[in-house]
């Protein structure tokens, strides 16, 4: 859509779009305000309808990513595509999907026209969404010949027919490498399935079965929600339904602006680094945010961020907006109903050509797990700092929790059931959350959630083993992943999987943290780590399948070392990114995730809390001693108070000795 004016027919004109008319943009913004009781009832009813739609999507889809993990978004939009209400596990996509509706209106109003019963499909990251895996279907809502709104459903469909299986190919060097990109075709026309259009997708993917399940799930959700909206219109009248959509957005905007006004004006800055592009060695890139709040407006300026990467570690502008929304919706405006009104007080500056706003055809498959995560991190950081300026919000202060992940995430091959498939391990959603402060929650939540999929559940190991040709040696909270601070971050999971009952399977790695710390903490806490089992690796254990049949089950990195010494094999530590590679039933794929950020000086954490952390295997004794300055008597399982006092004094003496005031400005 670029800089073109939307709608091209002007703000005051209505238009015949085939199945009816669309009123002018200015006209739909004029509405008779509902009284508070009606507004409360109807806005909640609208939300419950789209939430029901989302639940329908999750129940119909068989994909672990959607059905188990909840990577599904559902929204209702006004006639021009502004999001009036949303229900989502994936916070990333709300604003981005509006672009799809705008392009449908601009390109299809005349030919072939837009009709009741049409269902359009998109997964073009340049227009909306985040990357090609994000597959959106939307349907218009007509009432007596007038377009009054849209419904949209989005799922993360893991296989896109890209140059590698699993939808997010590390070896992508162009958007053209990232699979099919559907540009608003009608999957259904006037209520009938368009089989030719469907085939154009099904014949472009390695896994038509999952695609069909996800598509039908989205259609089911749209049908359920549309039926409920029509019932609502019968009961309350169409004018009130149109009004509640606009009032919802205006209400959220009012609340968002009021909250911004209650915080001090100022400028806050935050930086987050990444360490890999296309290899063979590391590449340092950064996301730089300067956030300026003046009265009721917040400008997010990413000037200073690195130029676009050559590989897929990039964000289209919608990926940047989505990653901002993750932080805004979960940290700053968490109590405000989610819709387009929430972002009206925000202004985004993202230099074109930087990795926050890459040009058309630049690869962007890794937007959510890499630069997107960094964007959410820096926005979360500046929100926390802004919230300090008003005591009323201290309990909401949260350290960043989009830390490093280094995983063998994407697989493709022949399943144990004999068919070709591909997918993504969603275990990394079980991340530790960021810590709060004394007046808030305090410690982060262990394996709480991934910030971008805040409503998601971690897929069951058993479901993954049922659907994917792998079994798990372990998936567990990993020691020393949480960020150490006065308040600690939550711990995250590591996992070790082995291919099982498959004649051919590949695995691809994505991540970071080998060369640069990517996670952040707040106000004196150290960054989180990838834990004690790293680095990520493929571990060949000779005759593992035969040995396991006899009852052998290695359960730690130490067990792997012992196995290799006794029976043969080797470790191969992987790079942060590695393209799809064959693995066998004698290979263990070890994946790591760092925990949530902490808050405050670790020396301020009460020794008894540190002891409890050690007893729960959240932190090692080494971490307790070296970072918290807490000495634990191993026999008594108690804090050695005298030794702890001495250790903490020693750490402070070290700080005094090595600390020097910056004098670079004088040079």
């Amino acid at each position, binding site marked *: 859509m670029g800089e073109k004016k939307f709608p091209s027919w002007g703000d005051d004109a209505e238009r015949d779009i085939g199945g009816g008319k669309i009123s002018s943009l200015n006209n739909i913004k004029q509405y008779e305000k509902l009284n508070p009781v009606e507004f409360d009832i109807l806005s909640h009813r609208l939300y419950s309808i789209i939430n029901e739609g989302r639940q329908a999507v999750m129940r119909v889809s068989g994909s672990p990513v959607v059905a188990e993990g909840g990577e599904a978004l559902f929204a209702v939009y006004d006639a021009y595509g502004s999001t009036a209400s949303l229900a989502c596990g994936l916070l990333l996509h709300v604003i981005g999907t509006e672009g799809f509706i705008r392009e449908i209106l601009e390109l299809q109003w005349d030919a072939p026209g837009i009709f009741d019963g049409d269902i359009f499909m998109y997964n073009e990251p340049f227009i909306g969404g985040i990357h090609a895996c994000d597959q959106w279907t939307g349907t218009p809502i007509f009432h007596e010949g007038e377009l009054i709104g849209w419904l949209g459903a989005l799922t993360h469909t893991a296989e896109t027919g890209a140059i590698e299986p699993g939808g997010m190919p590390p070896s992508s060097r162009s958007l053209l490498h990232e699979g099919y990109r559907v540009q608003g075709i009608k999957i259904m026309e006037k209520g009938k399935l368009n089989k030719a259009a469907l085939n154009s997708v099904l014949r472009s993917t390695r896994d038509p079965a999952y695609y069909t399940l996800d598509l039908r799930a989205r259609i089911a959700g749209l049908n359920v929600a549309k039926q409920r909206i029509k019932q609502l219109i019968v009961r309350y009248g169409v004018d009130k339904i149109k009004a509640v959509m606009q009032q919802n957005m205006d209400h959220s905007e009012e609340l968002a602006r009021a909250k911004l006004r209650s915080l*001090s*004006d*100022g*400028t*806050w*800055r*935050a*930086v*987050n*680094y990444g*360490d890999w592009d296309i290899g063979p060695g*590391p590449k*340092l890139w950064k996301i730089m945010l300067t956030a300026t709040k*003046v009265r009721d407006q917040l400008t997010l300026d990413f000037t200073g961020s690195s130029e676009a990467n050559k590989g897929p570690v990039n964000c289209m502008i919608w990926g940047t907006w989505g990653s901002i929304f993750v932080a805004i919706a979960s940290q700053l405006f968490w109590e405000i109903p989610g819709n387009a009104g929430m972002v009206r007080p925000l202004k985004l500056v993202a230099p074109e050509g930087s990795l926050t706003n890459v040009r058309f055809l630049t690869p962007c498959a890794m937007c959510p797990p890499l630069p997107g995560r960094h964007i959410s991190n820096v926005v979360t950081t500046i929100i926390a*700092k802004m919230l*300090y*300026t008003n*005591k009323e919000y*201290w309990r909401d202060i949260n350290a960043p929790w989009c830390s490093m992940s280094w995983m063998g995430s994407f697989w493709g091959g022949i399943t144990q059931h004999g068919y070709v498939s591909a997918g993504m391990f969603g275990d990394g959603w079980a991340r530790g959350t960021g810590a709060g*402060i004394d007046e808030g929650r305090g410690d982060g939540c262990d394996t709480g959630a991934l910030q971008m999929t805040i409503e998601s559940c971690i897929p069951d190991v058993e479901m993954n083993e049922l659907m994917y040709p792998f079994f798990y040696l372990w998936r567990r909270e990993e020691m*020393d*992943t949480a960020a*150490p601070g006065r308040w600690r971050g939550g711990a995250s999971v590591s996992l070790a999987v082995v291919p099982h009952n498959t004649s051919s399977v590949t695995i691809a790695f994505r991540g970071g*943290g*080998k060369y*640069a*710390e990517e996670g*952040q*903490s*707040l*106000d*004196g806490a*150290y*960054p989180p*780590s*990838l*834990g*004690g*089992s*790293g*680095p990520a690796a493929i571990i060949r254990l000779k005759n593992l399948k035969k040995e396991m049949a006899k009852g052998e089950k290695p359960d730690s990195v130490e067990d792997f070392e012992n196995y290799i010494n006794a029976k043969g094999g080797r470790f191969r530590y992987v790079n942060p990114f590695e393209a799809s590679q064959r693995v066998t039933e004698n290979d263990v794929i070890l994946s790591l995730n760092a925990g949530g950020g902490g*808050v*405050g*000086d*670790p*020396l*301020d954490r009460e020794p008894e809390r540190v002891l409890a952390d050690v007893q729960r295997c959240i932190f*090692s004794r*080494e*971490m307790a001693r*070296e*970072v918290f300055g807490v000495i634990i008597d191993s026999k008594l399982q108690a804090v050695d108070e005298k030794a702890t006092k001495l250790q903490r004094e020693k750490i402070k003496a070290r*700080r*005094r000795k*090595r*600390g020097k*005031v*910056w004098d*670079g*400005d004088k040079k």
Partner: protein
Amino acid sequence: MRIHYYLEVDKENKIKCLKCGHVICNASENYKKHVPRSEVSPSKLPGQHPSKDDAIVLYYEYYCPECLTLLDVEIAEKGSPPLWDIQLKI
């Protein structure tokens, strides 16, 4: 007004340590340029961190000059000036 877990701006518009009361600088300045900092390799911490040879960014620790409370752990390229992360309009 509080601006940080350990810092506030007092009535004289000075940035002050909340733990020990030490006055660091004017509110219009970058407090990190007025407190001791030290460069630390991430590999000094337990857990999986970049090794000393591999690390391409470092930790810069900032301390209260008086009570030596760790105020911030900034991740930055070697030799980077202190990031002005809190710049209030006062």
